[in-house]
């Protein structure tokens, strides 16, 4: 169990923690999975990296169920449409366009707002389901994993991520493994979380992308802290930046060959490398201390 941080899973409130980064390959999934495994209490893990979900690879979990995710796209009844063009003038994404004739629908451009169907004066537009991906539920020890996986050729991840976040239970601890970067899928993941952990590496690339991620979470007004992974491969510029910007460094994880070897075999680090279970379990204490400390 967690120590005296004031946090008790399932009690007065629940806590949603997102693991994000600017740069890819810094260790978001490794951290998400291992923090979850290091806890003795039940935890929900959401793999929000829907273009390349891979948390399950480290868990070898049991599949519980699957659910298709659809968005709604317009379908035009050509007998009712009089070609007035109101739908095309309304759509900001060119998903439905008219040329004084019946409209053309480009489903892959559609954000599913439903505006065209609502304002069509002829009532000629209905909304139909358009599959974008799949949510899978897995179980592994104390972890319930929900994974979003976007279909090949689908470009819009946020609706799938929002559907995945509907799986967040009403209480308990939730860890969200975010996609890399600072664009729409990440913002969709971070919406309404309580705390963001930004994982970086101590290199010029790590620092550059960390500053972008810090700008993003500050813009979103979310409390956050930094974990520096693979300390020893680069220099101390990330730590100096965090000190200058008054950002909490929650943990520095050493560049350890034993960790890299476990990772390359697809093994859990907390289970196969001695000493790491305590290290990862301690992250929750650091997060709670920073969160309760009112860090913004």
């Amino acid at each position: 169990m967690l120590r005296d941080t004031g946090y008790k899973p399932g009690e007065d409130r629940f806590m949603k923690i997102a693991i994000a980064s600017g740069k890819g390959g810094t260790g978001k999934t490794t951290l998400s999975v291992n923090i979850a495994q290091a806890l003795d209490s039940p935890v929900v893990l959401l793999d929000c990296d829907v273009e390349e979900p891979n948390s399950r690879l480290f868990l070898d979990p049991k599949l519980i169920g699957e659910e298709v995710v659809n968005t709604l796209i317009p379908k035009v009844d050509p007998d009712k449409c009089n070609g007035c063009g109101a739908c095309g003038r309304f759509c900001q994404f060119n998903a439905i366009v008219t040329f004084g004739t019946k409209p053309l629908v480009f489903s892959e451009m559609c954000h599913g707002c439903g505006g065209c169907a609502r304002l069509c004066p002829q009532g000629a537009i209905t909304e139909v389901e358009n599959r974008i991906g799949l949510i899978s539920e897995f179980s592994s020890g104390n972890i319930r994993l929900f994974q979003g996986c976007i279909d090949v050729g689908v470009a819009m991840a946020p609706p799938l991520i929002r559907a995945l976040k509907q799986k967040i239970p009403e209480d308990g601890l939730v860890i969200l493994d975010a996609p890399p970067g600072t664009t729409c899928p990440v913002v969709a993941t971070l919406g309404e979380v309580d705390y963001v952990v930004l994982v970086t590496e101590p290199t010029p690339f790590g620092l550059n992308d960390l500053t972008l991620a810090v700008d993003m979470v500050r813009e979103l007004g979310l409390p956050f802290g930094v974990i520096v992974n693979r300390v020893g491969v680069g220099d101390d510029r990330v730590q100096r930046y965090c000190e200058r910007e008054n950002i909490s460094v929650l943990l520095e994880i050493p560049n350890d060959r034993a960790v890299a070897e476990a990772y390359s075999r697809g093994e859990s680090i907390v289970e196969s490398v001695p000493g790491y279970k305590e290290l990862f379990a301690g992250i929750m204490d650091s997060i709670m201390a920073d969160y309760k400390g009112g860090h913004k």
Partner: protein
Amino acid sequence: MKIILTSTGRTLESEIDSRFGRAAMFILFDTESGDFEVIDNKQNLDAAQGAGIQAAQNVFNTGAKAVITGHCGPKAFAALSAAGIIVYCNATGTVQSMLEQYKNGDLKESQGADVEGHWV
């Protein structure tokens, strides 16, 4: 009849822009009077997505009946076809030289997109 040529510059001596949706300029040429007008496509050039569809709508709004360009993707081609606009792909060289080929009837009407969509 009015036709559109995608252009990298503002004169008939400019090179054809090989892109349709993200062309720098559109030259709207009147084949009867020989006059032309330059339409800046900057807004579309910076669009995140849907540039081809938007460009097709812009072309439709000019009243042009044909487009001469380098390449045209599937969404732009579908939109131009729906608007009844003839597409001539594979244009290269200057706007003037393409106009001459058009007047001589040397251009071949495209039957479909000649490139893939830009995010597939």
